[in-house]
């Protein structure tokens, strides 16, 4: 029925668990920001995190590639497993982890370098290309995958900061996919973009899903509904409800989810 969406584009291609979070707690000093979150994020699936400001969705997203390590007062407890391996294990190099779990931020943040160097940066530091020809290939492939190649192919030496906002964001996505990540985390990737650029990024997210597991934090419920197959609703640090996106938007189980997505005071 309503809950079993049969649309082809809505079918989840994989049931493989890419990231499993078990009993995750996050503290900022004395503040308990994430309270006992358990969630399984599937491979080749777009998972949306929604919830009011301060609900912990971005904090939780940042746990998934250890971005919270950079905040001194932040403590993370519990297990987060990527393909069954604990990413908080002492032997895990966060830099290597972030190559596998890429991230795109709210505001496009290209390096003050050329378009080419923006994309080539990651492959260079991770030694993914043996020579210039290989690097050229990676750059072109990444820019194509981010649906911006045709717009920039004739000016790869121009500064990345000179592009429009939507182009800059797609450049950042190209930069994120250049290291061949397995998971792409996106924190409000369209909030600074106009509707056309938003639609382009959303179309891109849907294409990226064939290769990666994508996790997107968004304040736009319509965006979550449009791009994701799974939706997680966070409230006051709790993961209130996690389910198939069609179900969450037609018949949520928890009254807090209902209040939030229908625009009522929860």
């Amino acid at each position, binding site marked *: 029925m309503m809950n079993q969406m049969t649309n082809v584009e809505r079918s989840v291609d994989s049931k493989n668990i890419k990231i499993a979070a078990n009993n995750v707690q996050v503290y900022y000093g004395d503040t308990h920001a994430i309270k006992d979150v358990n969630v399984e994020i599937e491979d080749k699936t777009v998972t949306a995190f929604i919830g009011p400001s301060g609900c912990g969705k971005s904090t939780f997203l940042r746990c998934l590639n250890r971005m919270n390590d950079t905040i001194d007062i932040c403590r993370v407890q519990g297990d987060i497993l990527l393909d069954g391996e604990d990413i908080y294990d002492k032997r895990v190099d966060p830099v290597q982890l972030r190559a596998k779990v890429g991230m795109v931020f709210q505001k496009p943040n290209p390096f003050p370098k050329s378009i080419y160097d923006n994309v080539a940066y990651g492959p260079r530091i991770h030694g993914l290309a043996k020579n210039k020809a290989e690097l050229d290939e990676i750059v072109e492939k990444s820019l194509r995958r981010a649906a911006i190649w045709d717009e920039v192919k004739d000016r790869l030496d121009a500064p990345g900061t000179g592009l429009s906002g939507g182009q800059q964001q797609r450049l950042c996505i190209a930069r994120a996919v250049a290291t061949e990540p397995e998971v792409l985390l996106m924190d409000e990737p369209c909030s600074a973009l106009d509707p056309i650029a938003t639609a382009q990024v959303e179309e891109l997210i849907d294409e990226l899903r064939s290769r990666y597991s994508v996790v997107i934090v968004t304040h736009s419920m*319509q965006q979550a509904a449009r791009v994701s197959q799974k939706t997680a609703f966070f409230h006051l640090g709790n993961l209130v409800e996690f389910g198939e996106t069609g179900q969450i938007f*037609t*018949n949520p189980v928890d009254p807090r989810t*209902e209040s939030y*997505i*229908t*625009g009522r*005071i929860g």
Partner: protein
Amino acid sequence: MSEQHIASAFDRDLEAIQAHIMKMGGLVEAAIMNSARSLETRDEELAQQVRQGDKAIDALEELINEETARLIALRAPTASDLRLVLSVLKVSANLERIGDYSKNIAKRTTVLASGGDINGSAAALRRMAREVERMLRDALDAYIQRDAELAAEVIDRDEEVDQMYNGLFRELLTFMAEDPRNISSCMHLHFIAKNIERMGDHVTAIAEQVVYFVTGERPTEARPKADITSQSA
């Protein structure tokens, strides 16, 4: 949901659409009763009123369609709001059909006014119409009260209407067999009975929408089907 939307204009839009549904429901309830009464009392004036009144019902359906489309476009309703809006569309379509059946009954009243009533079948039809009208009133009450239990009860009661129809069907067959001069009147009376039986089905569909809107689930049990006339010779 008793809670208010943060955007109060959204609440006003939803309330306006539901008010139209209730108004439409009131007109349709009256149409059912008036068409049955006009049949029993041979009141051609009342029958004429029912036929005229259908225009107002149709206009309300149009209005509801337009306002619902507008609300979907502007507010992108989700969850219970979405289910409300979807159910409004279906409920109004069902009400409109019930209005059409009432109008059809009122048309036949005029034809029957010249012929004779067959052994009190007009009174039996009125009882049947009365039951359908009560079901409709309860279905609409269930809608306003968000009462899925009452709606489920209405769904069950359709069986009684079906049984009343079966009884009338057999009775009319007998009259026609007894005296071929009865055939013309009996055919009209049968169409009327069938119209009322169909009204019951539309009321049931409305009650099903109430269950979906309130619970998010379609009613699971198969609807009771007691119209067995298709199985008899």
